[in-house]
């Protein structure tokens, strides 16, 4: 493999008799032009705008204003919801994937789980909010049935779909299957021989997990959890359709700002966007790094 790559990187000299100006780069011009115009430039200009005042002069005021109460709270709720749904989603998704791969279940369950996960992880946005309102809302089926059969009022427990836990529970509907999809290849990489070898050497089930499986799996696990975090942090449609603007998460605040300049400061809006990119960017970079680490074992 290594040899092959080297050979490809240095084509035989006969193929290029004279060193002339290569026009190869022309082939990727459309791609770079497109991504520059519709991906890099728009985002880049926002990031610049975050460090400018209304007249275009450099300032750090916008960044400082992010730490005022409204904005800080919005970030806090967003981070809390994303953390909760990422951690729970990662844990439950992991258990589900492990149950199907290593749990001694019938074979047909695996492709079924994969297909259903593919569907559920893509079933997000506004319709997902509708589905959960019809399930756990005030007149939702589960709410009504609990009342009818067990005389149990969901509302009396303080549960409200338009709240932190309501949103987390809703997000889990696409977070868990996403985790199943990302985690399955990693779990497949756990070789049977490792388990056999450790049990021949007298290791208990716990020791096998503690010293073999977990050290191999944790980069994938943590990395996937970070991806889930970024996934729910940038989400807006579900939350907006579910709660209107009653839950003050950062995407909804930004949405309101774009719609009607609720912060009364355009550049503060840019800083809000910058903060989001920094958070999702950091978690994604960490994810890529962890993924590279995990691939060492899972080849």
């Amino acid at each position, binding site marked *: 493999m290594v040899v092959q790559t080297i050979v490809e990187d240095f084509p035989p000299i006969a193929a290029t008799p004279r060193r002339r100006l290569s026009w190869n780069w022309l082939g990727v011009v459309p791609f770079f032009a497109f991504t520059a115009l*519709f991906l890099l430039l728009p985002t880049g200009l926002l990031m610049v705008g975050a460090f400018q005042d209304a007249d275009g002069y450099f300032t750090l005021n916008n960044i400082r204003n992010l730490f005022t109460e409204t904005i800080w709270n919005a970030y806090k709720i967003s981070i809390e919801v994303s953390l909760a749904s990422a951690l729970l989603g990662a844990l439950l998704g992991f258990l589900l994937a492990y149950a199907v791969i290593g749990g*001694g279940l019938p074979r047909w369950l695996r492709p079924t789980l994969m297909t259903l996960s593919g569907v559920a992880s893509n079933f997000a946005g506004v319709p997902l909010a509708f589905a959960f309102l019809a399930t756990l809302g005030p007149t939702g089926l589960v709410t009504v049935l609990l009342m009818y059969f067990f005389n149990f009022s969901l509302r009396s427990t303080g549960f409200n779909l338009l709240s932190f836990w309501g949103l987390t529970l809703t997000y889990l509907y*696409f977070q868990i299957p996403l985790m199943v999809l990302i985690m399955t290849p990693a779990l497949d990489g756990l070789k049977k021989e490792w388990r056999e070898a450790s049990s021949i050497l007298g290791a208990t089930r716990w020791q096998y997990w503690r010293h073999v499986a977990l050290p191999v799996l944790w980069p994938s696990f943590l990395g996937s959890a970070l991806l889930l975090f970024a996934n729910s942090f940038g989400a807006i449609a579900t939350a907006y*359709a579910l709660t209107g603007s009653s839950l003050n998460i950062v995407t909804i605040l930004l949405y309101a700002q774009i719609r009607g300049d609720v912060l009364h400061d355009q550049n503060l809006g840019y800083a809000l966007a910058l903060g989001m990119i920094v958070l999702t960017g950091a978690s994604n970079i960490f994810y890529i790094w962890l993924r590279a680490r995990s691939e060492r074992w899972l080849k």
Partner: protein
Amino acid sequence: MKRGRVWSWVAIIIGAIYFFVPLIATFEFSLRMRRGTHSFDAYAVVFSDQRFQASFLYSSVLALATIVVGVLLVVPTAYWVELRLRRLRPLVEFITLLPLVIPAIVLVFGYLRIYNSSSWLPLTASERGTDILLMFGYVSLSLPYMYRAVDTGLRAIDVRTLTEAAESLGAKWPAILFRVIFPNVRSGILSGAFLTFAIVIGEFTLASLLDRPAFGPYLQLIGANRAYEPAALAIIAFAVTWACMGLINLVGSGARGTAPAR
């Protein structure tokens, strides 16, 4: 080992409950429109709604345009990178992953800043211009999935040999690209296409903030104003998602991907 299997079943059953109960509840809810009995009235109302037809058609056309532009952008790029510019691969891959880092709402905020009606390229000044901007936005959002699906397909075939064979038979570049490369990565392209369709059809953020009459904003509007129609719409949206994923499985070997929640 036996105990482990019991727990596996428990996990599967809980997962199945989590997956199916909201679907069943939503379906049941969508049948409640007529008082005292179950009926498909909500579906009848939805399907006969002029705005439903218009917005669904609008989003479908937009999704198709997104797929065409996305494929024309991604396939030649991925092919060329694989064939001639391998050094650029990490950079190209990095750029295609950026839409996962940049939330859609941030992207559209940027669009509104640089393509507003008083800018150097006032795309949002006209309806058609905004449509095009929205479509380009969707191409950007679907880039990670489209690129990965196509790239996986390209790596599975021997691009270099195929190209040389076509060249030695006298084929020109367009013929190589459209009659050799495209057919060989068809399953990858189709996977990417169906995934793109599933993303675009119900997308809310971009369409709403660019103020276009797409399906996502229509869903939101109905959700805020009606009782039973939203449940029917959720079932319809679920059916569309299911169809897209089913088609991806059907076209087979292409890369499997998932969409972020937007």
